[in-house]
């Protein structure tokens, strides 16, 4: 196992270097360079221009800059952003990342949970009304033009029903008197969410050791409830509750939209895998053992069909760091996706490369995690 991980890591590092090089050269070759967009600023003196050029390394030929970049890349230094000069690219990303992660990880988890449940049900009742209806609705949302869905949701929930804020991250009216920055609150929120996930995972682990079904269910639900109550007490007593609530309110619409957009993907994968597994002989055996239908479905079929879905899930978790360009634009959510657009529009090469590289790293890590997880879920695989 450790040998396997080592081997994979080695492969991944090579892949990463190739990827970073491709990204670097692709962006480097973009027409309209840094000079045109940044240094041509008439307010700068010639000396200042030279200094800037030197600082960004543009006095050196391209291949030297590439080598320098790779050297810095190994130290996880992705350079300085043009747009947010003089902030480092890494620090820009670190500011954007939590917002994107909170939004997209939540949406991904919800949509996979939904997709998994729907998928196993519609596969079990293949060809019935539920199957057709869920497939139809799923595919329509899966292929819907994303801006349209966002517009639609904003219109219905924001404009017509006036339930939720239209877009943005916070509502300035509420935050006028705040003694704490939105970023701080947000970090606390993420911490809270993280604890919730952690407790959930631990509870699941404990539940898997327990014998009866009721005990399993109780463990999971009780621990979740406990965390929720404790969090509630914390937010209430600290007085930050109102701010946190504001952020959460801004989150609902984008999460809802994202979930609608992507649940069909996992649902259809689940359905297809289930259909394949239902034909296996061990499903017939399980039925012949006299097990009730839903146990055969959940314990025997869905458990096996889970494997490809888990891979998909982990890899899409990796992709969440890149955010969604469309969604973030439509909801004016200042995350990674928006950063892509900003970097592109202002020819901020270091930021653009940084964003792409960062995404690549996370996706590769996700691949590795998926492989390891697969080995845990499937006893047949021993590396």
């Amino acid at each position, binding site marked *: 196992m450790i040998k396997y991980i080592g081997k994979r890591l080695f492969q991944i590092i090579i892949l990463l270097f190739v990827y970073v090089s491709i990204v670097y050269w692709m962006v480097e070759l973009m027409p309209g360079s840094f000079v045109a967009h940044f240094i041509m600023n008439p307010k700068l003196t010639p000396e200042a221009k030279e200094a800037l050029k030197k600082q960004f390394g543009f006095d050196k030929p391209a291949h030297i800059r590439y080598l320098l970049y790779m050297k810095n890349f190994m130290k996880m230094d992705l350079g300085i952003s043009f747009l947010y000069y003089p902030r480092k690219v890494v620090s820009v990303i670190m500011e954007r990342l939590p917002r994107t992660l909170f939004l997209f990880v939540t949406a991904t988890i919800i949509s996979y949970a939904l997709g998994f449940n729907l998928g196993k049900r519609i596969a079990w009742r293949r060809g019935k009304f539920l199957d057709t209806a869920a497939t139809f609705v799923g595919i329509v949302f899966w292929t819907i033009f994303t801006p349209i869905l966002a517009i639609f949701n904003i219109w219905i929930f924001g404009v017509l029903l006036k339930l939720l804020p239209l877009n943005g991250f916070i509502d300035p009216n509420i935050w006028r008197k705040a003694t704490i920055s939105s970023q701080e609150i947000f970090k606390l929120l993420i911490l809270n969410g993280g604890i919730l996930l952690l407790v959930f995972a631990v509870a699941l682990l404990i539940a898997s050791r327990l014998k009866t079904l009721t005990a399993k269910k109780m463990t999971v639900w009780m621990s979740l409830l406990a965390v929720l109550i404790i969090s509630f007490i914390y937010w209430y007593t600290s007085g930050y509750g109102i701010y946190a609530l504001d952020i959460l309110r801004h989150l609902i619409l984008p999460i809802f939209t994202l979930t609608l957009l992507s649940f069909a993907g996992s649902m259809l994968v689940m359905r297809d895998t289930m259909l394949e597994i239902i034909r296996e*002989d061990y499903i017939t055996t*399980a039925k*012949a053992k*006299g097990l009730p239908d839903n146990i055969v479905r959940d314990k025997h079929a869905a458990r*096996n069909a889970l494997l490809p879905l888990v891979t998909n899930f982990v890899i899409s978790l990796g992709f969440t760091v890149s955010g969604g360009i469309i969604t973030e634009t439509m909801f004016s959510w200042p995350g990674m996706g928006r950063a892509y657009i900003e970097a592109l529009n202002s020819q901020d090469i270091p930021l653009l490369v940084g964003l792409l590289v960062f995404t690549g790293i996370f996706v590769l890590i996700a691949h590795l995690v998926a492989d390891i997880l697969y080995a845990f879920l499937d006893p*047949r695989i021993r590396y």
Partner: protein
Amino acid sequence: MEILSVKDLKMYYKTKLGYVKAVDGISFTLDEGESMGIVGESGCGKTSVSMTILRLLPENAEFMGGKVLFNLDGKTVDLVSLPESEMRRYRWKGISMIFQAAMNSLNPVYKVGDQIIEAMLNHNPKLSMDDAKKKVAELFELVGLDPRRMDQYPHQYSGGMKQRAIIAMALSCDPKIIIADEPTTALDVIVQDKILREMKKIQEKLNMSMIYISHDIAVIAEVSDKIAVMYAGKFVELADSITIFKKPMHPYTYGLMHAFPSVTGERKELTTIPGEPINLLNPPKGCRFAPRCPKADERCFSEDPEYVEVEKGHFVACHHPLEVGEVINFGE
């Protein structure tokens, strides 16, 4: 004592082109401790018979009539008319099954022992885990597996071991009847021989009833007290195994007996039954074997022969049953 009695059982698969008459009027009885073999070629519906008895059928299957009377502890129930939730109680506890592709009958992600325990707990929720484990260990000993292997996953087993585990699983709820559908087809001869001997021994020891299903008449002959020969959805002949070998009455049975080369004895000329088995989708009327039968006449093509008891315990469905010692020539 009669434990299972199947009366004129009919089960068709509905397709776009019509009904596939996979089980078309089958009757037999099975006594306690008796073993019966069903022999037939692929596609003749022999697997459908077992699936019909246990009601493990795909959605397009339709019962067209008949009864499956099952006698459990002096109470007789008709499995066909039982509601699904009731039926579930009879599966495994009343009748358990060893499947055709036993290699794939174990769920790859659960430990073998746990899969057996699951079946036991399902039928007896009060059973404690320790007792269940003890029972599994006993079963493993019985089928010749190392009890320590129950915490292993199926992929760590060899083909023969998997088959033994399946047998242990089939025995786990002390069923009255075990249906073994091609239990040794995928195995090599030596392993096959061992498993068959094991099964025979266990059956005698526990006084269970068995139904063996196979295409291999030699395998059936080794383990069964009586043998039913199935052709195109129907039983064409049923008798105790010695009778069926010594005086087969149906031309198809005769053809099957003489189609096997043998390792010992004279090197004899083999019989070839000409033609192909008929399609079960909308079969023509008359005897279904008639197109391949050298003895067929007009009556065979127009009138379905009745399945009658010609002597005690010897049923045959043929207009022109063979005399003892009659030789028929199927031609080339």
